[in-house]
């Protein structure tokens, strides 16, 4: 919830700084008209973004204090806790294990997924492919299936007694493969996520490819460049921007990993209640009845996501400049 706002500061700045900028000529004409036009956005932005973040931050500074047995209506009081919840987050080993897990997940899954997406985009874009429209749609289709449903579908392919994959591997001499073991579950989740989002990322990269002016290809061909050379020397460098965008989206998505592990928890005990930071926040809020601590986790996670996304952007930009 909180983590959703990292892309809006620019818009926010535009919204507030626009009309009243000093030193502009004919300032008087601005009047209330721009404010009126901005109001619908401003009100909704405040209502659905600023207010919830503010509320989450406020909640994260509180703490429920229990006295004695803690039973009965007057045994608990909500008190101001300062940064106590935050101190707890930073010293919570299950939080850091969850962070480590999603980072490991991201380091492996994001490059694999983006490599797939890029190859598919190049194939769909290349002149050699027939039924281009069909493939474009087919690759994109998994994205249209909600994450929860996708996880349920895949869970049937992972369950040892029901899965045709497990049965096939068993009959062809690969032995019994356990997709839901202590060391395999994370990669089974990575597989679901890759399946879901490769097509989506492909489409963004494909859109980037479509934006490349065709005269570039023409001159390359005149210079005797092969399809492969065109792909590696022209197309790939020209879609770096799209790749960066998909990279950032994927980092954000990975840190917020939630629905796939939550669904798979029903079929394996190898996913703990603090498997990912978001799952930990969920458990704290809805199982442990500790919304204040959950709010602190959410705020820390949002800040972390913000830092990582912008860190990645800076890194890529510096490389681009060098």
């Amino acid at each position, binding site marked *: 919830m909180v983590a959703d706002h990292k892309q809006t500061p620019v818009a926010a700045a535009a919204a507030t700084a626009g009309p009243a900028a000093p030193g502009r000529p004919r300032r008087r004409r601005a009047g209330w008209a721009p404010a009126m036009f901005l109001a619908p956005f401003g009100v909704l932005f405040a209502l659905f973004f600023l207010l919830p973040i503010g509320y989450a931050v406020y909640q994260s500074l509180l703490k429920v204090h*229990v006295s004695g047995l803690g039973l009965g209506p007057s045994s608990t009081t909500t008190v101001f806790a300062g940064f106590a919840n935050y101190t707890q987050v930073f010293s919570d080993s299950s939080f850091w294990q969850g962070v480590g897990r999603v980072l490991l997940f991201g380091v492996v899954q994001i490059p694999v997924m983006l490599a797939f997406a890029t190859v598919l985009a190049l194939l769909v874009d290349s002149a050699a492919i027939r039924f281009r429209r069909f493939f474009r749609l087919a690759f994109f289709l998994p994205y249209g299936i909600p994450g929860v449903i996708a996880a349920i579908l895949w*869970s049937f392919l992972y369950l040892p007694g029901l899965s045709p994959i497990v049965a096939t591997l068993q009959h062809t001499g690969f032995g019994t493969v356990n997709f839901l073991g202590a060391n395999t579950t994370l990669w089974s989740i990575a597989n679901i996520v890759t399946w879901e989002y490769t097509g989506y990322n492909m489409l963004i990269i494909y859109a980037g490819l479509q934006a490349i002016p065709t005269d570039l290809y023409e001159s390359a061909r005149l210079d005797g460049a092969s399809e492969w050379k065109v792909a590696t020397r022209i197309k790939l460098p020209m879609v770096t921007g799209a790749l960066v965008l998909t990279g950032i989206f994927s980092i954000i998505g990975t840190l917020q990993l939630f629905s796939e592990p939550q669904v798979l928890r029903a*079929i394996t*005990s190898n996913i703990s209640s603090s498997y990912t930071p978001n799952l930990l926040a969920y458990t704290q809020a809805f199982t442990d009845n500790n919304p204040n601590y959950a709010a602190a986790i959410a705020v820390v996670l949002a800040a972390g996501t913000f830092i990582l996304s912008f860190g990645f952007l800076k890194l890529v930009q510096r490389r681009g400049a060098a």
Partner: protein
Amino acid sequence: MTSLIHNAGRRPRFRRKLLLAAGAAAAGILALAACSSGATPTSGSTSSSTSSSSGKVTLTFWSWVPGIATSVNLWNKTHPDIQVNLDETTSGNAGTYAKMFSALQAGNAPDLGQVEYATLPNFEHVGGVIDLSKYGADSVKSDFVPWTWSQVSQGSAVYAIPQDTGPMGLFYRADLFQKYGLAVPTTWAQFLSDAEKVHAAHPSVYIAAFPANDAQWFAGLAWQAGAQWFTTSGDTWVAGIDDSASTEVANFWQQLISDHLVKVEPDFATEWYKDLSDGTLLTWPTAVWGENTLVTNAASTKGDWRVAPMPNWGSTKSNGNWGGSTTVVFKDSKYPAEAAQFAEWLNTNQQSITSLISNGGLYPADLAGQQLPAANSPVAFYGGQNIWSVFRANGQLVNTSFQWGPIMSTTFTQMQDGFGKATGGSSTLAQQLTTTQSETVSSMKSQGFSVTSG
């Protein structure tokens, strides 16, 4: 909202516009709704009581008991001035408790709710349930099995009306026991030797499953062995989750797991239902309400199952309890007296209880209800066995002083996480009991509870 958390990251750009549009649309609808006068109480709404000018009271009730609607309809027919709207929810741990806790926080909880004994102290702790002794609850005290009453009361306060109990028993496949030449175990030692015998001869067959995801199941087994997880001494909680009885149970199942004699898999899951149906699992040690679970989810095994008393630890007969629930009145109710009246009626009216037994598979906490024909007839699914008599006899053996702690949902989660590690191979069940004990104590301490280790 759960999907929002995740999706927000993967598809931010386009979704934001959609969300804003949806928000605007919702705001518009709200405005329209505000304009249209004439408050029509909508059934199934999450808000609490509504009342019309005629003095008629409408109450909302969240419950997941199958077929409880029959009892509610009966009430509505006989009590025209107090109408109850039933919201059929998913079971408590599958999300309804989370919803109830959030609703309590938001101040819009329903009037009445289904709450299991183990979770009731959690609701007392957040101040979410009304003391029913103010509304005549004491008058029905003598109707109930005594230990259920002690689980719903604290001192003179009564926080719920007991509905059903979950005395445990051993459901077993009589046909397969005969086929494999096994004797129905009367002790856990025999259970172990049966497990070894059948698994050695038939590697794909197991005596039972071990559900690491279900700490409440384990609690029932520990309860049978004489565990005492929580007690109170004055104003202080004494926690003993890793007491000697619980450790004995943990070590027993650890041996079965280490020797691959049980199938480690989550219960109430697709694969588990399949294993109960196709003969992979020979027994299910569970509570009386498991009767309904098998009828519903292993229909193809009709006539194959029977029920025996739980295997004992040594020669002393004992039993545990798993589940069973209560009806509570939430703090937000505008008509607590009427709600209390319904809660008492629901769980003591013999017609209502009959329906709960035959439609919901519940075993009543009401003493007279246990004598009803519905709780004493042979059941066709169990080959005409009068399974109820087994549970009634063994219900007497349930250790009545077992007490739940105030943050059981946290304790259960910690135990399940720990058991997941143990079945994953990096630890043992007994070690994880000790971990759960220390985690629960430190969770309680950090919240301010007065607690010591027993």
